[in-house]
């Protein structure tokens, strides 16, 4: 076990936990955007930064990846942390102030307007979709392409990927609604990535779609008793 102090609370946590995991397990809330329990942490949104006491001065670390170290003293809501989070949210507002999730964060931090506005963008590049597609679905049909402000999520060469199975995991995991499905009439559906699929409706709720291909796969797997 490792001894760590978070917000003045002395905690004992198992080795290998990140600060975020240790905090959440102990009921200390840290806001996140690019973090998902089911996915490898990515440390990109910087909303989960916490202050780690260090000599000669404290530093900010991303709690979603930073491991709990013996004797570490961590603050999740200090002035330094709040300033950083405010800046991050204000920067996200520059392009995505119209996204409800960002509006909610802005309201929490008391920011009315970003000081500079950039070209509007629904996507905040949290990378959840890309990681889900790779780590959960296992097909890597989409990835992050380009650099800097030109970075975006796209299938290879920006053409419909043959690896996409139309599972909609990306749509499900997207926190801003940037990834869309378009119903172009039964039983076809066009994916955000320009792939179109024959889809079937859920027999029970009638809401969810799945392309026939994975259904066949599942049926085969069930038949094999996997």
């Amino acid at each position, binding site marked *: 076990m490792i001894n760590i102090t978070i917000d003045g609370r002395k905690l004992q946590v198992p080795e290998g936990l990140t600060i975020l995991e240790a905090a959440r397990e102990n009921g200390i809330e840290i806001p996140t955007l690019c973090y998902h329990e089911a996915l490898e942490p*990515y*440390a*990109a*949104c*910087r*909303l989960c*930064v916490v202050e780690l006491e260090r000599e000669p001065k404290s*530093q*900010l*670390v*991303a709690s979603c*990846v*930073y*491991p709990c170290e013996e004797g570490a003293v961590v603050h999740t809501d200090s002035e*330094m942390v709040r*300033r*950083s989070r405010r*800046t*991050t949210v204000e*920067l*996200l507002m*520059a*392009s995505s102030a119209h996204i409800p999730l960002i509006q909610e964060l802005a309201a929490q931090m008391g920011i009315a307007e970003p*000081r*500079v506005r*950039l070209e509007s963008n629904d996507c*905040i*590049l949290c*990378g959840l979709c890309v990681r889900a597609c790779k780590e959960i679905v296992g097909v890597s049909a989409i*990835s*992050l392409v*380009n*650099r*800097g*402000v*030109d*970075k975006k999520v796209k299938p290879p060469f920006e053409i419909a990927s043959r690896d996409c199975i139309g599972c909609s995991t990306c749509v499900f995991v997207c926190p801003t609604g940037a990834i869309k499905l378009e119903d172009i009439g039964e039983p076809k559906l066009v994916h955000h990535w320009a792939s179109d699929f024959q889809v079937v409706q859920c027999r029970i709720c009638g809401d969810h779609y799945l392309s026939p291909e994975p259904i066949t796969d599942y049926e085969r797997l069930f038949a094999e008793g996997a």
Partner: protein
Amino acid sequence: MRIKTLEDLEKAREIGTRSLYPSKTKIMVGMATCGLAAGAQQVYDALLDEIDKRELDVSLGQVGCIGWCCREPLVDVLVPGKPRITYGEMTAQKVPEVLEALARDEIAKELAIGRLDGDENLIEGTRRSYLAGGTGTTNTIPLYKELDLFKNQLRIVLRNCGFIDPKSIDEYIARGGYLALYNALTSLSPEEVIDEVAKSGLRGRGGAGFPTGLKWKLTRQAQGDVKYVICNADEGDPGAYMDRSVLEGDPHSVIEGMIIGAYAIGATEGYIYVRAEYPLAVEILTTAIQQAEEYGFLGENIFGSGMDFRIHISKGAGAFVCGEETALMASIEGRTGEPRPRPPFPSQSGLWGKPTNINNVETWANVPVIIARGGDWYHQFGTERSGGTKIFSVVGNINNTGLVEVPIGTSLGNIVFDIGGGIPKGKKFKAAQLGGPSGGCIPKEHLNVPIDYTTLQELGAIMGSGGMVICDDDTCMVELARFFLNFVQEESCGKCVPCRVGTKVMLEVLTRITEGQGQEGDIEYLIELGEEIKRSSLCGLGQTAPNPVLSTIRYFRDEYEAHIRDKRCPAGVCQDLVYAPCQNECPAGQNVPAYVSFIGEGRFEEALEVILDRNPFPSVCGRVCDHPCEAKCRRSQIDDPVAIRELERFAADYMAAEGIPSAIYDRLRAETDGQKPKVAIVGAGPAGLSCAYFLARLGYRPTVFEKLPVAGGMLAVGIPEYRLPKDVLNREVEFIEKMGVEIRTGVSVGEDVTIPELYQRGHEAIFIGVGAHRGRKLNIPGENLDGVVDAVDFLRAVALSGHRMWVGHRVAVVGGGNAAIDVARTALRLGADEVTIVYRRTRNEMPAQRSEIEDAVAEGIKLELLVTPAQVISQNGAIKGLECLRMRLGEFDRSGRRRPEPVEDSRFRLDVDMVISAIGQIPDTTPLLNGLGLELDRDGTIKVDKDGRTTVPYIFAGGDAVTGPATVIQAIAAGERAAVAIDQYLSKNNSKVYLWRETKSPDTPFDPEAEPVPYGRLETTKLAPDERQSGFAEVEEVCTRKAAVQEALRCLRCDYREEQAAEVPAETGVLALAEA
């Protein structure tokens, strides 16, 4: 050939030595990328051809770059028994000349730029003389160690660059190569190797400066069956190219360093991550690795030690972020080049999750020397906390551009001025940008700082990879920051929010500032955002990206403020804020392009009117202005600046001779309403008269009170007649009077009448422009003796007495400014036999105008430089001499100049009978200001805001009384600003538009497609020096009408904007030229 033993190595060494120093003549061409870009391939081909044609028995070889970039392409000739000669700026056409000289057993002296009498083998600490068996050296070509660029260098990393053929492993071995590896593998344990590296004080040369020994130790101690070493050769900072130079000039030094490192760490595989934009480096490295494999330095059982090690080359696709170690490893692994958070650090979990040690090219290249000579030997160089040397690529506005390797701790001033040779074209050093886009700038105040990892960090810069961009005073620091931020913004990988969005937002703010759209609060926002980006970003790129912005704000905040508040770019760079650089630089904002182009059209009346619009003293300024406009003239990038001052004088003199048409007076008067309040002006110098002139144009009838019997202030009693004849001055004073100004001379305000009395008598506003008419004291014994005179007193007495003044036979003038030169030349004209100017710094640092110094020297005035007076010697009340001390230049002071320090036991005596002190003036404001309650600055000058408002609402001030001694044009500008402030005060209207402040392009034709006229700057005619001494006749003649028109056509019309194109009439300046 596989090398297993020292004997094998010796054999290779013999082969290499024969090829390095053949028994016949050897010619070497510097063929690194920099040489090739300058044309080295053509030179090489020409050499090959000519040698063949002439059937010469010489060997022709290729070498890397020696770092003398400003003189490329370089060709070295080594004749056995003779010094090695370097020929610079070679072309194919110059090749025959070199070969013909060679055939005659001579040196082509015109082309030779340096020589070496031998070279040093740093690994073994030996020296080889080239002169053995020869007839000695030659003194006509300077030795490398006598050259500015090389004399203070210590070349450890660059030891072989420019000496060996990078494709010959034997030549590398001949200079001690792979000996360190042999020693390490056969007689040192890995721990001992790490100890030596730790002792050496070597820190990572990639920029962050992590102690190399410690890094190796951590990787060695890490658990893991497989470990890697990586060479980071992803050099990407704009302006930095030392790594490329090492890879292209001495690849084996890096490979040997990596093998030694791998041995110490326990790695079996190594990667060199080199950017694909360095194709020559990749090619040379590939060859070098092959050769090292053939010799058995790479592969299995190296030197029979049982160690196995291989090196692979991994080519990067050019993303700047891939220089960051975690992104670099991701790229080698074939993933997107994005950084990941640390911990875990590469030493624990690096490439493919294995313990990995990454160092950059320069760090690795140090290692063989450290092992060969020992850590202690290496650490004798550098500072206590950081051993050895660092290479800087010194680029930008500097005379000697090139690669410079110096001990860590060398001062910035040393690199810029001693090694770099200072700033070209007489411009001033403004700042050095260190560490590229991740670094910061260091201004002239810190030239003295020793360059070290920690000191640089304290100043807001970083060592970085060693890029050093030198900026002169033509650099806009806001634009510089914008340039670097644009770079990082484009190179940000885009993964984390602060770096991706934050740098973009900062760029937006900076862009709007440079476009004149800056807002109050922008500077504070940039600082706030910059600090947060540094704290919150994921990797080193974002954590350092705001540095150029933060450091330029720290040192040049006034420049940001000028952009935001005054919509002005002081350096004259930002296009949206600058009408033309000359106009931008003129304190009075004169519309130079307009009057120059009117002169080019023969429209002299309009030219004069344009000048008079901002300056009532065209004849005066046409003669004595220090013309800052010319220093900014873009024509100097082609040849020399346009003779702007001369053209101003021509327009004024020509129109004075023609007679100024009365219509001009009417047009200059913006308002004719005579019902304005009364305004009093104290002092009829340039500031006071300028203020009166502009008030008169606004309809006021100001009264000027002058203590002296003549009007003109310093123009009348400070500037001697040979520079500014009295009738010329009087003609402009009369012009101002005609505009509606009353001048009352012989009235001393403060004595005859006080300022409150003037106010009570109905002068609702009062302007003080009394000048600085009291000389500073020398503060040396004997200065109160008769015969020790102050410069301002002397010049005033000369002027008022009509040149009837006693001077000594041998006169010493102390000081280096314009007053000192004026006094010296005046003394000469009054009959002094010998005049000596005593100045404590060198001629370069003299504040006087260059042309004035040249004229003085031409007239026979002596300069005693680096000399300071210590005591005036007298006998029976008469002066017998001036005792002086010799000075030498010491450390840099905060003005960016070297501080003079006395040389011990250097007292000497100048045999003089008169001493004139000209070391500066201060305003003499008592009793004028007594009891007014005006706030003064510490030096006794009057405190005002930028428009001349004092702390008393109805009192305004400007000129030398505010600034201390300054230039005529500054005083004129201050007078104009105060006139506007007074009008705003009296009319209670702050939003009024003042027409002369709107600078418009003239309606003269201009063809932007036409080539600039090819001829050079006009030369003025001056009185011969021997004719000058007999009297006070004006030295410089006005140019002819034809010369003026021709000169005016040299203007490049920087004011021209594309939108104007439609308005251009068909006529061209050639017509006017034909008429002239």
